[in-house]
């Protein structure tokens, strides 16, 4: 697990004392800095991206930063074997992030100030129920969870595989586990 300050990345990328994530150019610059930091992490690391010192986050910037950061991690051939959890987002950040995630069919894990982790973005009800079960129970096999959500073990496994492929859960042999301390 590692901690990355989005505020520091913003200031480093623009070489200026800004606290707002606005404009596509800024989003692309911050993404580049953070991608560089993520590339230096060991495989399987959960990176906590800390938004706590960020002021305004507009949709154009969020699309350029958040969506384009997540897309290469979650496709069939991910750019790296790592995980990202957002942390320190306020209500307005969350609204903006959710909007861009839905546009791209993406989802991610957000850890709220009380420590609770939430799944935000484009997920089905079944995916959310399974994800929440894993968060509550810890490392689980698909067969253990299937009955709780009223689906076959095969269906539960397919859904959980999808969540793991989207980097929202972690695979642990035949079981599925929460991301790092987000559990």
């Amino acid at each position, binding site marked *: 697990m590692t901690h990355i300050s989005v505020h520091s990345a913003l200031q480093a990328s*623009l070489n*200026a004392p*800004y*606290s*707002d994530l*606005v*404009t*596509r*150019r*800024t989003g692309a610059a911050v993404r580049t800095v953070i991608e560089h930091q993520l590339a230096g992490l060991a495989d399987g690391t959960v990176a906590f991206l800390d938004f706590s010192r960020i*002021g*305004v*986050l*507009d*949709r*154009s*910037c969020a*699309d*350029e930063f958040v*969506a*384009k950061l997540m897309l290469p991690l979650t496709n069939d051939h991910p750019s790296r074997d790592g995980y990202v959890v957002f942390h320190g987002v306020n*209500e*307005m950040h969350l609204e*903006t992030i959710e*909007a*861009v995630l839905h*546009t*791209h069919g993406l989802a991610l894990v957000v850890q709220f100030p009380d420590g609770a982790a939430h799944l935000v973005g484009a997920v089905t009800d079944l995916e959310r129920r399974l994800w929440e079960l894993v968060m509550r129970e810890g490392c689980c096999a698909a067969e253990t969870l299937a009955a709780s959500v009223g689906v076959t073990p095969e269906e539960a496994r397919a859904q959980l595989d999808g969540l793991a492929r989207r980097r929202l859960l972690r695979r642990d042999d035949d079981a599925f586990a929460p991301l790092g301390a987000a559990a």
Partner: protein
Amino acid sequence: MTDVISVPASLDEQSFESVIEQLAPLAPDAKVLVDARHCRFATPYGLTALLCLAQSRAEKADFAPPEDDQVASYWARSSFFRYAEELYTMRGATPRPRASGDSDVLLEVTPVAKSEDVHAIVGRIQEKATQILTSKLDLEPRATMGFAMTLSEACSNIIEHAGRGGWVMVQRYNWGKRRVGRDVVQIAVCDAGIGFRASLESSRARALADRWDDAIALESGVIQGVSRLQDPGRGQGLKGIRGYVHRFDGKLTVRSGTARIAPIIPEWDEDLPRQDALPAFAGTQLQVIIPKRLARP
């Protein structure tokens, strides 16, 4: 020969149309004098659009400033002359801006040409406007963030799509005697760039359209979120603006080329959703009006 363009006594979004009507028959390189001597009131839209007018002329235009000292002083405090003096040949003295403690100007006329400008604008509006937005308009602190987002998205569109720099200004008004009956904040973001139609010329919407004109281009861009770029994440900025304006019972109007649309018309106002075949004017002019929040029953 110089053609005189008369600026109306009250210059706002609607009355600026009379300025455009006077300009429309003239060749782009015709010499014009923009005569604002008898102007007594100007909104952010009026002031920023006057700067766009200057940018749109091939031959540098002349400008006669308001004769009324108080009006001229307000224009100076709003930083209008600071930029007008670069774009126009001034015919007459302009006052130097003096600090007045005028807290109704939330953001003076400010150029928008590069990404750093948007950061500065968002920073300044948060620094200066948060107290006014919360105390005078009863907006929640969270709404002031939405206000800043609206500004940043509108200004970003100039940088991304207009092809030349533009202008932004924000002002609070007491509209107690108007139909809305409460305080409002007006945002004007105007440019004299290529406009929606040219920007979307290479878009899929253009390729699929049976008819293609300024009004269709405006509706494609503002309402349907079409962008000239194929990236599926594009078009979210205007969507965000529409969402914010709607949520806070505001009004949004956008003019480009020969068309003007009002995609969000609140109950407290009347307007035409779409106007075609207006006299042509360069670029895109956007206005947002956010009223004071009504107490919940």
